[in-house]
Every structure is written in structure tokens, then in C-alpha cells.
């Protein structure tokens, strides 16, 4: 990042609390997905079927073998219902912090976000040379990061709905009933994993300075630029 004679300054990017929430969530979410799959294995019958033809079965036997996910239902439930608390508490504290600290202003999309998000997507697909504005979060990031918070919330709600379908029968009903809420829980998990993969790719592309900011809180930025909003 050391520019050739370019004047750099330290720029505060991510508050300490958000860095903790972020890094705690990573292993916790991983354990939730893994233990969720241990549970799903016991009756793994979801598939993509259109007009009587099955295109994909979740999951091929090989998948369970590679990750040794089979015959571990009790273990899966033990981990899932323990780490669900940590996931929920960490997530709720994160949202609370966003709201109280005003950090939500960077994260939630605003009226410029749509236009900007389109530009970012075109840029990332090498379809335009115009570079997106250098800000803490651009429009595409705002949509992505806000969606992932909502996705986390939906995972929590659908999870509760299928964990205690009698105690929370109204919630389960709102989410389309026990079976449908279970499918939602599964689909949202897939979306979460997809987000994770894209997120890691984008972080790799954005480079060390950006990644380091999620650990240290600071980024090296050219002095000329206006500091983040």
C-alpha cells in the first residue's frame, strides 16, 4: 500500500465493537452451519425438482462423506442449540450497537445506493472502467451487508419456529408452518453460505489494507481524499 511518494494518513474505519461482533460471528456461524447439516442429514430430502425432474439433491452422498456429516444427529442438536444462543446474543448486540452508535448510517442503503450498487456490480464484472466512490461502504456493500443482517434475523426466527413449533406456534404459522419454515431455514442457510463465499472473494480482491482494517480498525488512505462521510 505504500504509494510512491503519495501522502498517506491513518483513517479510522471499523469500531472495536463491530470488529469483535464480526469475528465472533465467523466461527459461531460456521458451527451453526456445520451442526445444522448434522441435523439435516437425519432426513435429508430437499431437492430442486421441476416438472418431475430432479436437478439437484441436497446433498449428494459424497458430500456427507467428505465432511463426515452422517449419523451425528444427537451431536448436531447439542452444538446447534448451544451455539444458537451465542449467535443470537452476538447478533442482537451487533444490531443494537449499529443503532446506538449511528454506524447504521454507513450500512443501510440510502437513496444513492441503487445507482451506486449497479455501478459497483458493472465495475466488478469488468463492464465499466468507472470506479465506484471510495467510501467506507459503497452501495453494493450496503445492500449486501444489510441483507446479511436481515438474513441472520430470519435464520433466528425460522430457527425458533422449528425448534419450538408449539411454544411459538403463531410464529411458526406466520412463517408458513413447520415444514415451510424448515425449508426457509435451509434456504437462508444456503444464502448465508453463498454470501460468505462472495464476501471472501471480494475481500481478497480488495486487498490487504481493507482486510487489515477489519482487524486493526484503521486503514491507510491517501490524504487528498475526503474522509468517509
Amino acid at each position: 500500500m505504500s504509494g510512491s511518494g503519495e501522502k498517506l494518513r491513518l483513517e479510522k474505519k471499523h469500531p472495536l465493537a463491530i470488529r469483535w461482533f464480526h469475528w465472533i460471528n465467523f466461527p459461531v456461524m460456521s458451527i451453526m452451519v456445520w451442526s445444522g447439516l448434522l441435523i439435516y442429514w437425519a432426513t435429508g430430502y430437499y431437492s430442486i425438482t421441476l416438472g418431475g425432474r430432479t436437478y439437484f439433491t441436497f446433498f449428494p452422498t459424497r458430500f456427507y462423506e467428505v465432511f463426515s456429516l452422517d449419523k451425528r444427529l444427537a451431536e448436531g442438536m447439542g452444538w446447534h442449540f448451544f451455539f444458537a444462543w451465542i449467535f443470537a446474543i452476538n447478533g442482537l448486540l451487533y444490531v443494537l450497537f449499529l443503532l446506538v452508535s449511528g454506524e447504521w448510517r454507513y450500512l443501510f442503503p440510502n437513496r444513492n445506493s441503487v445507482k451506486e450498487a449497479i455501478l459497483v456490480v458493472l465495475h466488478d464484472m469488468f463492464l465499466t472502467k468507472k470506479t465506484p466512490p471510495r467510501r467506507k461502504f459503497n452501495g453494493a456493500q450496503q445492500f449486501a451487508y444489510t441483507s446479511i443482517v436481515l438474513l441472520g434475523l430470519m435464520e433466528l426466527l425460522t430457527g425458533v419456529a422449528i425448534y419450538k413449533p408449539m411454544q411459538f406456534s403463531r410464529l411458526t404459522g406466520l412463517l408458513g408452518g413447520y415444514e415451510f419454515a424448515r425449508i426457509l431455514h435451509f434456504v437462508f442457510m444456503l444464502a448465508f453460505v453463498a454470501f460468505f463465499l462472495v464476501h471472501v472473494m471480494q475481500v481478497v480482491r480488495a486487498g490487504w489494507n481493507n482486510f487489515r482494517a477489519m482487524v486493526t480498525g484503521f486503514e491507510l488512505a491517501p490524504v487528498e481524499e475526503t474522509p468517509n462521510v
Partner: protein
Amino acid sequence: MSDELTPSEQPMIEEEPGRATIGEQLAEVEPNPEAEMKRISRRSFIWAGMATMAGLGFIRWIATSPETDGLPAVLRKGLQLNESVWKGMYSTERLAPTYPDSEITPNPKVNGIGIPEKEISRDDYLLVIDGSSVAPKPDAQVGNDGRPALTIDFDELQTYSKTEMTTKFCCVEGWSQVIKWAGVPLAEIVMKYPPADPKAEWIYMETMEGDYYVAIDMKSAMHPQTLLAFEMNGQPLPHNHGGPLRLVIPSKYGIKNIKWVGVMRYTAERPDDYWGERGYDWYAGL
């Protein structure tokens, strides 16, 4: 990852609205931002390393904690914590949703352990009740312990309020099906034959041949939808579904819905539970 700049090592800088950012202020006091970044990074990554070690240690500690009934002790504690949360919330007034007959699952799945080899007719069937304050009739059959046993036969079962309900049966494995049951509320039997020990908080039930057994907490047992069922989808309960008499308890996972109930026993201590001893939750409430 966790270090904010500590006051002792950093110039005292406060972030103020409308003023320059910390970065800009730092740029003024810190002539070499790259060296400064290095310094911050070193500290942050040492923190990150320690946090990672702590996290991995935490997970390892859980995974390697000695097993309690087939589950690492920490996770078992977690299940017990959950149990106390949900037990605290439990109300016998909250009912499991019921369904119209049109939603009944055709050909309900057969699952379970302990099927008796021979079919048992209703005429030969007896439910043994252990630990009640009600004394058995003097002419009663002799139980396993050599004393007269308190028993209920099918004729007596018919004297309780026959209850029909169409509820969802949820298996821990993740499948579920809607079934129409008919039977009598377990609560009525508990009222008629109350436990001798006022501190009895559990009912233990086992199959007629004793291969399978469950622990049911008293509150769940007293729920109006907890039935000793003898009909399924309008027919006498088939042998492979637990006939002549099984427990149906929609507030619990399928594993608690014990078939071919032979014995029910009141206990103050948490009784044995087949799947509870094999890594599953003792409570298993829905």
C-alpha cells in the same frame, strides 16, 4: 483485533463531530502513518492471535469435555440450560396446533424400538401404574415385585373422557406428519391415581417388553393434549404404531411418544430415558 489505541501509548485524541477524523489528527501528530500502522497492526494481530487461540480452546474444551449420556458434558449442560428456559415458559394452556382431517398424512411412517413380537389384544392389555398412593385391589394381579399391582384395563380406559385431536407428529430426524388420534388424557389417570410421593416430578414409561423407555416431566404429562391413545386416523391403533395403547404427546418430539405402554411409574428423580442416554435431550420439548 481488540486494541483501541490505549491512552498511555497514544496522544490523547478524541473523535469529535464536525472535526477532523482521528486519522487526520493522527496525520498531524504522527508524521509517519505507515510506521504507525505497523505498530497498531502488530498489537492488533497479537490480540487477534490470542482471540483465535481462545476461541479454538473454547471449542476444543467443549468437544473434549467428558461425555455425559453420550454427549460432551458442556453440550449436555447446554441442553439442561435450554430445558430450564423452556420449562419456565411452559404452560399447559398453550396448545399444539390442530389440523383439519384433510391434512392428515396418508400412510404414516412406522418408526421406533421395542415392537412386541406378538400382537396384544385389547382384552389382554393391562397398564401397570407404579408409585401411586392408591392401593391396588386385593384381587389384583401380582406385579414383577411380587406384590399386587395397580393396573388399568381397557374397560376402565373407556370410562375416561375420550378425546380426539388431529396434531402434528414431529420427529427429531426432521420429518413430520399430521395424524388424527383418539385416546384419554393422561392427566385424568394421574388425577385418579396420584403419585404417593408429592415430590414426584416425573413419569417413567416403558414398553410392555421393556426395550424402550421414556422420561416425561409432570407438567408435560398433565397437558390436556397428552393422551394415552388407542385410535389412529379413526381405526383401532395398529400393532406397529403402538397398539393397543401408546402415548401421544404433541408437546414433545416423537421419541417421547412411546408405543405399547406397559408400565408408568412416578418418580421424584429424573428417570431413565432411552434416547436421553444416547446423546439426546431429556426434555425434547417442542
